[in-house]
């Protein structure tokens, strides 16, 4: 209702001689009678309305729809057919590829996540020292994370290639390894190869650690020094506890990212997940079901199972925080 209409309505009701009772609902539709707080609330909702609309159209609506599809058989062309919990029964009891792709994903995460967290912290610690050319070193370490994606995967396919690559000649010639693995051609080494590829882009994790390290107040180190703590003790009792929130952040982000791992493995295997399905990670399997087999119902079920797994894993990490994450309550900005 526009201002004009509401004015007309008010005028009309005055002529009729019946004063309207200013009920909540009445006020809601008469912006002129809003008090300051109500005006502020209206403005707030006006400003956030793009997100609310987007949330309903692109998040909440699709979530409900995908939940519904997960109980149907649906190939887009024909209307969805209700099949009850059939999809979920297939996922858990009849589809060996579900368990296979899940275990491949967990294998990838179990290698990439701890290595990424540890190396990222180690490099950040080194880059936090006052050494010559520190800005240059920071730039070099961060650079690969800027070019993440297709180009990186294409580059590393060549590096791993036993014939034209540079990794195996290095392993043979410099480290003296007789039979270097075939990397992406070898089912046993394909996932470790992808882990190495992902470690190259460690700069993103590293830069977050670095920001955290720079936020540690120097007076804490000075106090520890006065108390006679050596450098190892200062690291153990000052740096590490104060860095746990940042480690926690990187852990959660990394956990979610590794369950959604897709681009590099798609490019490296042309979307097949080979050799012999050794790199068929969960998200790739989901993609194949949805956009190659157009089995939207089954893919929706897979997506919901993924969602629940990620949610449980994240909750588990959150629940573990009192054991190891140290919050410096007062220094929060």
């Amino acid at each position, binding site marked *: 209702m526009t201002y004009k209409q509401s004015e007309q309505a008010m005028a009309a009701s005055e002529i009729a001689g019946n004063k309207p009772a200013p009920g909540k609902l009445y006020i809601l539709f008469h912006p002129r009678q809003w008090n300051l707080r109500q005006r502020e609330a209206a403005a707030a909702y006006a400003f*956030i309305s793009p997100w609310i609309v*987007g949330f309903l159209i692109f998040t909440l609506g699709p979530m409900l729809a995908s939940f519904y599809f997960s109980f149907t058989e649906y190939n887009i062309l024909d209307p969805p057919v209700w099949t009850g919990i059939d999809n979920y029964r297939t996922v858990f009891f009849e589809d060996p590829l579900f368990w296979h792709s899940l275990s491949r994903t967990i294998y990838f995460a179990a290698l990439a996540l701890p290595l990424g967290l540890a190396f990222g912290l180690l490099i950040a610690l080194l880059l936090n020292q006052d050494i010559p050319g520190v800005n240059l*070193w920071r730039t070099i370490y961060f650079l690969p994370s800027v070019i993440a994606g297709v180009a990186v995967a294409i580059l590393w396919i060549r590096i791993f290639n036993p014939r034209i690559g540079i990794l195996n000649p290095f392993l043979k010639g410099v480290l003296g390894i007789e039979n270097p693995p075939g990397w992406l051609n070898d089912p046993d080494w394909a996932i470790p190869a992808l882990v190495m590829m992902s470690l190259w882009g460690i700069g993103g994790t590293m830069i977050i650690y670095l920001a955290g390290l720079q936020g540690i107040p120097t007076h804490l180190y000075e106090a520890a020094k006065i108390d006679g703590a050596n450098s190892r003790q200062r690291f153990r009792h000052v740096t590490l506890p104060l860095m746990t929130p940042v480690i926690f952040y990187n852990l959660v982000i990394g956990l979610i990212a590794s369950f959604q791992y897709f681009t590099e493995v798609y490019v490296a295997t042309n979307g097949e997940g080979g050799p012999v399905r050794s790199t068929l990670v969960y998200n790739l399997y989901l993609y194949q079901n949805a956009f190659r087999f157009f089995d939207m119902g089954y893919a929706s079920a897979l997506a919901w199972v993924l969602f629940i797994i990620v949610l449980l894993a994240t909750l588990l990490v959150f629940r573990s925080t009192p054991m190891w994450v140290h919050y410096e309550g007062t220094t929060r900005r």
Partner: protein
Amino acid sequence: MTTTTAKQPKNYNIFKRITGSVRARTYVLKGFTTIVLALGAFIIAVPLLFMISTALKDRNQLRASPPPLIPWETTMVEVDGKEEPLYEVVVDGQTQEMALIKNRPEGKGLFVDPANPEVTYELVIADQKEKRHIEIHLENFKEALTSVPFDRYLINTLIITFVGMFGMLLSSSLVAYGFARFRAPGLNVLFIVLLSTIMLPSQVTLIPVYILYQKLGWVDTLLPLIVPLFFANAYDVFLLRQFFMTIPLEMDEAARIDGASYLQVFWHIILPQSRPALVAVGIFHFLFAWNDFYEPLIFLHSRENWTVAVGLQTFNAIYSVNTHLIMAASLVMIIPPIIIFFFSQKIFTQGVVISGVKG
């Protein structure tokens, strides 16, 4: 000044005893750190150098195994109308440049002086030094970029990136302002909902969204990659809100007393103050959109709508033998992000600080 570590066991720190003074120890430590970092930086840089050098080689140069990082090419010389490799040969204690014209058994070869091809020398090839020179093939770039319509991909990517960036900045900053500066019932709950959507795997919403676009006829157009950005991005809203909260509230209030509307406060006070945050969020978005592969792969089917990332992946799948051309195309794809990164290095570290990762 010597260190006394009385309370610690005797051999607690051999390192300390060897290096003696604190200052010497600091220097040794710094030197050690620098060496470790330089070594790591070299390992990080080698793949990039490999990409650059491969992009500059031709098919013939690619045959060398292991591939040298410098694009060497064997120097050839014409002998009797045929191209033959040139060697530095030691004959009678004198170094001479000679061409290898024929292989002989037992690793030997027939060498001649190009100026005087009648006299042949039979020598062990392995003992002679092959003459080589650096040869770069810049025409690879032209060939790579014209063998598939990369200009088309580039235009698509730029449209998606920049129109999307405009929509994202506009909508996200409006929403962030709403969350940063107002009190209203339910607003905090909505903010938590917004934060939780960051953690939601996109796969959960992807299929219905795809079907929605299919029904709207948007699949295989650029719209699915642009339109949603006009409805704010949760992560960017979060980042911008954190930044808006650092702007003193007194400035808003003064403007409000002077009769400015909320929108005017937003436009004339909040946005100008937040330029660094807006630039940071814009750059993050640029990198994301430029490198994004998943969504373009799903929504764009026909060749003329592809982005650089999808085009490059397909180029790689089809022309995989032409490593030099693929590396040239890849190099072109990574140059814009690298340029952006070099011009905005500070913003990256600041951007992380803005996001309030700390605590």
